[in-house]
């Protein structure tokens, strides 16, 4: 065949273009750019670093300012105490159960939101049914009602359904998401009609089309939403506070709050710091893990 010089993969093209752009920048301005970036990173990362430093010192050291800038020698002691010495601390609940609760809630919200919003966007974009636009607008309008506004009626419903102190109660009310539905709708609208028709000619029914074509094409979007929703669920405060009474149903954020007594001296600050560090680890891991998908998605997407 005459015309088979394979076009550069998009990745290669992107890489080259970036390099080219870099070469065009002078050395000085590159240093300045880096200095600004590093400054930004320090500003953002310092509190986290300081939390980590505090988590490796004894309570006495923390309470006697100034706090050293370097980690201390109590790393193993503090973390051991926080993880395994739990009895009587956060209402008698160990940190791993709290982390488990929070993971269940964050995963439930993230996965549930994605499933619901992908399916509803699928229905709205690819099917004609009576009241389609009505449903779309109903979903759209809920955008204007944040959780806090509808928290009382929602709480009442949860009480009536006996869902207080259950995972369902924690997850369900936070699952419906107009934002995610809209995002998927916008993405689905960019899928060319020809592709849909090709699938129809190829004998793919709605379900096959969804599973074999729509979902794989939405990979990047799903990964991005998953991260955002996971962190959203992980950091929820108000709702878990309301809907859980038992200590063993607490999330880590609630527990952290409970660890901090009003009297400063009673607070085990070193353990609070350890728990804080433990609390941010899972979201960081999710971001790091999902990052691969983002980058891949960004490089692979073609328009």
């Amino acid at each position, binding site marked *: 065949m005459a*015309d088979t010089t394979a*076009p550069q993969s998009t990745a290669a093209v992107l890489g080259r273009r970036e390099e080219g752009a870099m070469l065009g920048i002078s050395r000085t301005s590159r240093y300045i750019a880096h200095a600004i970036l590093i400054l930004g990173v320090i500003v953002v990362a310092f509190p986290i670093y300081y939390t980590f430093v505090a988590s490796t010192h004894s309570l006495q050291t923390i309470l006697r300012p100034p706090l050293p800038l370097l980690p201390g020698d109590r790393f193993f002691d503090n973390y051991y105490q926080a993880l395994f010495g739990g009895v009587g601390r956060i209402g008698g609940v160990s940190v791993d159960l709290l982390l488990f609760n929070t993971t269940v809630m964050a995963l439930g919200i993230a996965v549930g939101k994605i499933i619901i919003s992908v399916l509803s966007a699928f229905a709205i974009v690819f099917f004609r049914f009576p009241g389609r636009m009505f449903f779309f607008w109903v979903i759209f309008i809920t955008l204007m009602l944040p959780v806090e506004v509808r928290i009382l009626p929602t709480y009442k419903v949860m009480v009536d359904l006996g869902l207080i102190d259950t995972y369902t109660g924690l997850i369900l009310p936070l699952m419906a998401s107009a934002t995610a539905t809209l995002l998927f709708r916008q993405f689905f609208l960019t899928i060319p009609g*020809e592709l849909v*028709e*090709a699938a129809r000619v190829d004998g793919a029914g709605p379900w*096959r089309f969804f599973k074999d074509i729509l979902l794989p094409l939405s990979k990047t979007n799903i990964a991005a939403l998953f991260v955002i929703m996971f962190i959203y669920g992980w950091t929820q405060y108000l709702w878990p506070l309301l809907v859980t009474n038992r200590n063993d149903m607490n999330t880590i954020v609630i527990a952290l709050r409970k660890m901090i007594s009003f009297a400063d001296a009673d607070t085990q600050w070193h353990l609070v710091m350890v728990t804080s560090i433990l609390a941010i680890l899972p979201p960081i891991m999710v971001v790091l893990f999902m990052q691969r998908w983002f980058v891949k998605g960004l490089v692979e997407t073609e328009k």
Partner: protein
Amino acid sequence: MATVELKDVRKTYGGRVEAVKGVSIDIPDGAMCVLVGPSGCGKSTLLRMIAGLEEITSGTVSIGGEVVNTRGPAERDIAMVFQNYALYPHMKVYDNMAYGLRNRGMAKDEIDRRVREAAATLGLAELLERRPRELSGGQRQRVAMGRAIVRSPKAFLFDEPLSNLDAKLRGQMRIEIKNLQRALGVTSVYVTHDQVEAMTLADTLVVMNGGIAEQIDTPMAIYEKPASIFVAGFIGSPAMNLLAAHGAEQGKGLTLASGGAIKPRDLAAPEAGRQVLLGVRPEHLTLVSDSKNADIEMKVTAVETLGADTLAHGRPVAGDARGGELIARLPGSVRISEDDVLPLAIDAGAAHLFDAGTGKRI
């Protein structure tokens, strides 16, 4: 393999826009039928109704003798090649071709055999592991063809499959499609607005205009005997000249608006006074020595030198041509320039007559 028959097929969008206004076509088994016409004439709509992608407002579509009006695209056993290829971007070339077969529950080794066979035919064997974005336009086009071939469907449907390729590749792919279609003997419907493509590919050519089929015949028959001034103007490049004329006295042929009298040999002369249009292809205007022998005189406004031919564009000195323009295809050796007045003779034997009112061939 099967015949495809359309009977008085109509399509009305949203109860108002009438896109296809009653088209009937019989496509014999294994033939290539090309739908050609200007933009918006309803070609794609008609094709999509055959494919089952668009509901048929009235009339019937039969494939292989069975009316398929109510069947979905997958149950009609057709394969379609789209203008933008519509390859699944996340699937490898292999899976793109295999997908339709898998959905039909075909055995794995049979799928493999068919995909590899099609890939070999199309020169895609090396590319089976690539994804569409790693292919050139021509290769993507081939994959789209492959996806159609592996299915061994009753009919192929093409909607402007070559319009995204550059001119050279288009010419090459045109021949490949033609050969492939011949070799496989699959009944095909091919939509294009490129008349060269239409002429070269078609066994049956359908010239469409405003939702109706103006003429259905072999390409040569249409070229030689266009049924209307629309077809005359659309098929052939440059377009046919249309000169205003009217019937002369009994037996005298016709009188051009420019004053010249002409007696087209094979054409029945119109009754005296009837307003007609005389159709003359640019190659049937010949340069003569002086105005005494000329049927019409043309003042040149532009000259296109093509090498073998020279195209002279101009206006008739007297009389009237449709669109006000005349084009003559003269031998390349003729030297002319702008503002020359050319005496031209009309090859009466090759001329066409159309009614000036209805635009139909007389």
